[in-house]
């Protein structure tokens, strides 16, 4: 639990203490603010939707977090801060949560935000007719009757959520969930205005119809080109909102985006793989890299129909040992990534990276060991192992795959055939275990180690290696109810390092160019990168 009531109190105190901004200075830091508070950033691709219950992609969620506000928000460091809720109480076994909603929260059409709006939104999410791709989130939240409602076996009204009165929301869970409040920062739990949806149907999210309760209103949307959101005067904390206007531009090519950033058209863009050092040298105030809650790894097919050689643990270990992670992070990607020898990123809250043997060796030792293991398994340079490596179309994946295939070739004599597949084909191939080794990446759904380690559970839908280890399953099942599951997580990581059903390669970093007048307010310490435009500001230069 990282919820700090202190931070929450502090920020609401500010809301009360400074109803209007002193002209041109930041209310907390006292920095002088720039006159033009327009934030323009690049997105890779058109967002899927701005409907909180429908949206399923990162860029869409970023927009939804500006347009709508849920029970809780995250601050710069990823801690919970009150949103529409001011606080909550819970029963002893943490199965019933009662949230108190603030009475000054309003929709952009002037109606108050009530507990009923949340009930409607959550029922809408679980309703099979809505057909949301995030329906399962109700199960992650462990809400009572979620499964039955989703399958259509129970009416939506059976969902364990109800409005006691306009400002009190009661949620009943299937079982205890200590971190329930954390799950309410997810966009699919944000309230939606029933009257607008009833009036306009699927068109309710169009700029001319939409009703929002967040800090910004949607004012313009041109698909695949731009989306504009502007200050919402009805937002309860509008006085503390500094950025007036947010513009997201769809620019598919990251190199073109960088050129446009350099020409001053953007305030923020991603740094293409390999360019971070050069940009850091030329623009030290603008280039930034920070750890993300994501792991990059190669998954090895160990299912029943996998080729025999991959079922040999020595081969799997040798392949892992022969990869020089430092070269991948320091020479190929060069964007602040950290080498990975274990699966869960060190940035995960409350998780301590266990020390596994091969992480402590030098690369020469690892290579030597790998050659020995290969020899034991019956392969050497005169009798080379042949395998295929698939990855999905992307510059960065290609670079890593090329480097890894050469490491395997040069160290072990393994003949690797690289196969670059287009995204959906790739997912299909990997999901049906028609591969030998496949590139994979995973970003945490929430900030806790189980979101990563669940992937090696035998029953997990995301376990593309089809790794099956009863001991791991048991350790993970036990961890769910433990107060401090670190010991179990350590053991699981050690088992993975020994069995090597997946080869961890690196932990992601976000590397961005952010204009120097904005970078100070960017939440670089929020590893989930849940940012809110209302918390950003541009200082005067």
């Amino acid at each position, binding site marked *: 639990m990282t919820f700090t009531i202190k931070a929450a109190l502090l920020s609401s105190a500010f809301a009360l203490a400074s109803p209007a901004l002193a002209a041109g200075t930041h209310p907390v830091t006292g920095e002088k603010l720039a006159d033009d508070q327009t934030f323009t950033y690049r997105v890779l691709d058109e967002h899927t939707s701005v409907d909180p219950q429908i949206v399923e992609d990162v860029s869409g969620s970023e927009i939804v977090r500006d347009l709508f506000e849920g029970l809780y928000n995250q601050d710069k460091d990823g801690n919970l801060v009150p949103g529409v809720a001011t606080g909550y109480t819970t029963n002893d076994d943490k199965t019933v949560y009662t949230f108190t909603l603030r009475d000054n929260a309003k929709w952009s059409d002037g109606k108050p935000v009530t507990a009923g709006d949340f009930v409607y939104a959550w029922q809408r999410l679980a309703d099979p007719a809505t057909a949301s791709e995030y329906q399962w989130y109700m199960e992650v939240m462990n809400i009572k009757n979620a499964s039955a409602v989703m399958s259509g076996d129970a009416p939506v009204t059976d969902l364990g959520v109800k409005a006691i009165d306009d400002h009190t929301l009661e949620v009943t869970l299937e079982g205890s969930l200590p971190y329930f409040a954390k799950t309410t920062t997810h966009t699919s739990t944000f309230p939606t205005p029933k009257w607008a949806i009833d009036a306009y149907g699927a068109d309710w999210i169009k700029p001319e119809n939409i009703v929002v309760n967040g800090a910004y209103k949607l004012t313009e949307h041109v698909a*695949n080109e731009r989306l504009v959101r502007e200050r919402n005067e009805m937002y309860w904390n509008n006085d503390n909102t500094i950025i007036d206007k947010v513009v997201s531009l769809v620019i598919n090519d990251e190199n073109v985006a960088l050129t446009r950033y350099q020409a001053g058209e953007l305030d923020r863009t991603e740094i293409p793989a390999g360019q971070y050092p050069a940009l850091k040298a030329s623009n030290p105030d603008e280039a930034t890299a920070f750890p993300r809650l994501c792991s990059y790894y190669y998954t090895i097919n160990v299912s029943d129909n996998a080729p025999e050689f991959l079922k040999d643990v020595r081969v799997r270990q040798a392949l892992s040992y022969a990869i020089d992670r430092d070269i991948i992070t320091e020479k190929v990607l060069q964007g602040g990534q950290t080498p990975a020898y274990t699966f869960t990123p060190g940035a995960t809250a409350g998780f301590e990276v266990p020390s596994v043997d091969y992480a402590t060796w030098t690369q020469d030792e690892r290579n030597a060991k790998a050659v020995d293991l290969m020899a034991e398994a019956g392969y050497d340079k005169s009798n080379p192992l042949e395998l295929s490596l698939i990855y999905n179309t992307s510059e960065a994946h290609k670079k890593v795959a090329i480097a890894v295939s050469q490491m395997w070739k040069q160290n072990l004599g393994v003949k690797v055939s690289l196969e670059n597949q287009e995204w959906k084909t790739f997912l299909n191939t990997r999901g049906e275990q028609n591969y030998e080794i496949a590139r994979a990446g995973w970003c945490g759904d929430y900030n806790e180690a189980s979101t990563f380690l669940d992937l090696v559970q035998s029953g997990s839908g995301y376990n593309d290696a089809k790794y099956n280890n009863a001991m791991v399953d048991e350790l993970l099942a036990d961890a769910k109810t433990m107060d401090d599951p670190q010991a179990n997580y350590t053991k699981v990581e050690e088992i993975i390092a020994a069995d090597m059903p997946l080869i961890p390669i690196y932990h992601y970093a976000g590397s961005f160019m952010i204009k120097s007048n904005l970078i100070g307010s960017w939440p670089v310490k929020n590893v989930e990168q849940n940012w809110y435009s209302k918390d950003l500001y541009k200082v005067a230069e």
Partner: protein
Amino acid sequence: MRQLETRSHQLGAKYRKFLVGRTGKSPGLVHIWEQFWRRLTLVKVKRAALLHGDRMFNFILRRVAVAIPTLIILLIASFWLMQSAPGGPFTSERPLPAQVLANIEAKYGLDQPTYVQLWNYVVGIVTEFDFGPSYKYKDRSVNDIIAQGFPVTLTYGVISFVLAIVVGGVLGMAAAIRQNSWLDYFAVGITIGAQVLPNFVMAPILILIFTLWLGWLPGGGWNGGEWQHLIMPVIALSTSYMASIARLTRSSMLEVLRSNFIRTARAKGLPDRTIIYRHALKPALLPVISYLGPAFVGMVTGSFIIDAIFGTGGIGYFYVNSAFNRDYAVMMGLTILLGSMTIMFNMVVDILYAWIDPKIRL
């Protein structure tokens, strides 16, 4: 028509051999030449038939009658190809739980047999002009996507197209008339250079020059079609077609200028201007017109790169990406749109062709 042709054969046979030779004729030109020669020998009957209103009407009717089954075949073929591609619209990095997937498929009718889906889709188009929903961009329909993206593509497409024809045509014509002058060399050099530079190379170079170094133009976006946002897309899209058209016009103009009837005209002492405008222009444009069809299709393809690099929001990007996203309805809606555009365009080209060369049977 048959009769006319036979007659022309007899009349022209003697000279035809001289003009056409036996083997190895250049593609369009010889054909055009034949048509042209026939025209010269058939002065009296030349306007006999083809531009007659009824014929034109019949021609259009016939083409439309063929267009409908064509579109249906196109629809079925692309639907089938799409369905046989691995993965579906809801295949994602995080496989959806079975129940969720079932709910979604039920909502979009994807749980039904393929032929039922196809039938429902066609019925939707015919009865309500509804091209279905986008599975990827869930808050909009294919109609929305077309309504928004198509005008964008059309705007920069038409401007590029007109520019390519006008500039290319004038340049080619000028080069031919002043053959072997500096103008000619300049035009040839420029056009060959422009023709071989792929637009995915040219577009980023334009952005580097005009946006980053000179700071004259915005590096992308559409902004409602402001002229500043139009310049680079139009240059990137039109240049190679402009070059092709200039080359085509130049070579066909040269041939026309060397032809017998122009020599005759010169012998008669007609002024150059009259010769060119009155006699040479129309025949010289024939190969250019036959090139317009492929150029149009090429520009549709090229619009993907324009949208991808300049972020203009046209349908080119949606189209290619709908294949990658397995966004069936978007893919089919745009196939129908672009297919019918192509059919219509080819029809217009044929009519134009017949207008210039009445020997062509409509």
